[in-house]
């Protein structure tokens, strides 16, 4: 029995490492090539660079104007994710608690928005009418609106896990709806919300097509678009492209790690009772 347990544990660990390896090798490829010279990088292999060109990163930051791009990315992602999660969780909460048919229909209306095709021309016209074209505010609102169906979809299911008895108890204690939501429900939803925020942050951070169409000047471009801009001029220099990619991916990875810690700690502290 003991051997079985050890064998099991070794097998399980081995599988984990093999899968991780498969998943990470292409990423290592990018990382390693970001330190090479242009000619060496064009081979795209896993050989360690003969000289470690750290200044690739400096070149990329300077020429790719990554400092402004980074700020833009942060503004768009943080702004839209906060707005969207906030509005979506409020909506989800009410829609999942109310047992009327109209609420179910409204929920369906929201969620089926995931399937809505994006037509850039009509969207442009609407943005123009609302004076949102070529503004950072417009981009934030747009991201929030487009992520809304997805976010509502994800949070709706998790909210039903919170027993109604809690609401009843709070109301008996004299809670207004707003207080009920903010002081009672929201803390219980934290792990789920953090997961959702991490996922939507990822979607928004990596997205570049919307700013491409809806801004008119490069000073509003986020990092992913700056990579694109960069790629357009230096498309033969794989080492610089890789460096650019590394720099763009780092923030999302950091957010994921931070989120992970929170999610795990939130879950294990018994925040959501069965």
């Amino acid at each position: 029995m003991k051997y079985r347990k050890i064998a099991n544990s070794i097998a399980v660990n081995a599988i984990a490492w093999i899968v991780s390896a498969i998943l990470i090798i292409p990423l290592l490829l990018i990382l390693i090539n970001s330190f090479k010279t242009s000619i060496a990088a064009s081979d795209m292999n896993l050989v360690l660079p003969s000289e470690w060109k750290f200044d690739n990163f400096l070149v990329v930051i300077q020429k790719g104007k990554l400092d402004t791009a980074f700020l833009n990315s942060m503004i768009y992602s943080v702004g839209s994710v906060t707005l969207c999660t906030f509005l979506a969780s409020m909506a989800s909460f009410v829609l999942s608690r109310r047992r009327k048919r109209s609420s179910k229909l409204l929920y369906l209306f929201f969620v089926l928005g995931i399937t809505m095709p994006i037509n850039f021309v009509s969207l442009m016209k609407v943005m123009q009418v609302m004076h949102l074209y070529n503004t950072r505010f417009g981009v934030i609102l747009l991201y929030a609106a487009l992520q809304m169906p997805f976010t509502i979809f994800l949070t709706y299911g998790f909210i039903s896990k919170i027993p109604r008895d809690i609401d009843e108890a709070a109301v008996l204690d004299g809670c207004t709806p707003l207080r009920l939501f903010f002081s009672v429900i929201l803390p219980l939803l934290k792990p789920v919300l953090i997961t959702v925020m991490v996922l939507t942050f990822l979607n928004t951070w990596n997205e570049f097509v919307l700013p491409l169409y809806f801004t008119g000047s490069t000073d509003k471009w986020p990092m992913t678009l700056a990579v694109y801009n960069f790629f357009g001029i230096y498309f033969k220099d794989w080492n610089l492209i890789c460096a650019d990619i590394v720099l763009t991916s780092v923030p999302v990875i950091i957010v994921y790690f931070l989120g992970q810690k929170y999610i795990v700690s939130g879950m294990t502290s018994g925040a959501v009772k069965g």
Partner: protein
Amino acid sequence: MNERKTYPLYFVYGALILYVALCVIPGLIGIGYSFTDWSSYSDEINFIGLKNFATIFSPDENYVEYLSNTILFTLVTTICKSVIGLSLAVLLTKKIRGLNIHRAIMYMPAVISTLIVGMTFKSILNPQIGLLNESLRSIGLDVFALKWLTDSKIAFWSVMAVDIWKGVGYIMTIFIAGIMAISPAYFEAAEIDGATSWQKFKSITLPLLMPTIAVTTVLNVLYGLKVFDIVYSLTNGGPGYATEVLYTGVYKEFSQGRYAVGTTLSSVMFVVMLFVGYFMIKIMTKKEVEE
């Protein structure tokens, strides 16, 4: 308890307004273009009724082929991502060393934008100098060094494999959240009853994960039907037309200036996805009630 008072509708207004103004209205206007002859060649836009739809379903266009490719892609990637994602999630909720490292590593492919994944894998899968074939050759497995993206028989499978590589960590993360929400009390009870890991999985994990499985399935199916980026950046529908999916077809129409036809295609897809999404959600909410 008065439902109306405790769960006021005004909580929904913010989301609703934003959603309708920037998502629904432009979308509907966009669909409206399907009924016109809008193109890059002329300034006027005329209403032409259902002519575009007739064009799409006519036998001289290849759209039926694109549709079957899209469906194949959706089926394969949904099943693989769900099965592999779930297995990994179960794996990574046990006691393993370096749990957080593994979780982070497996999630990372999702972090990289699709365009870059495409570029990178195009290089890795290059039959002559790509990393994969070079490695296979160096360990003597030359026979497996295939033309991954340029052999029309296997190109589509390669594209699907890359998509699964990228998406599995994302799905796994959702599953992990779902598994962690299962109260440990159930597992402890089962442990006392002497249940094996498989029995625990079958009787506790799987049933309680149904809502999460429904969520991921809907996400995967809708993603598969809408897929564009990964196909475009890896093969652009090639070699020849072997990997064309519906949205690369839409893109082609737009690039040739046939905007109305392109929009019509995406409108048809929209209706298809509406049906699929609607039925899946119906099934999911039914299952929840049964619990």
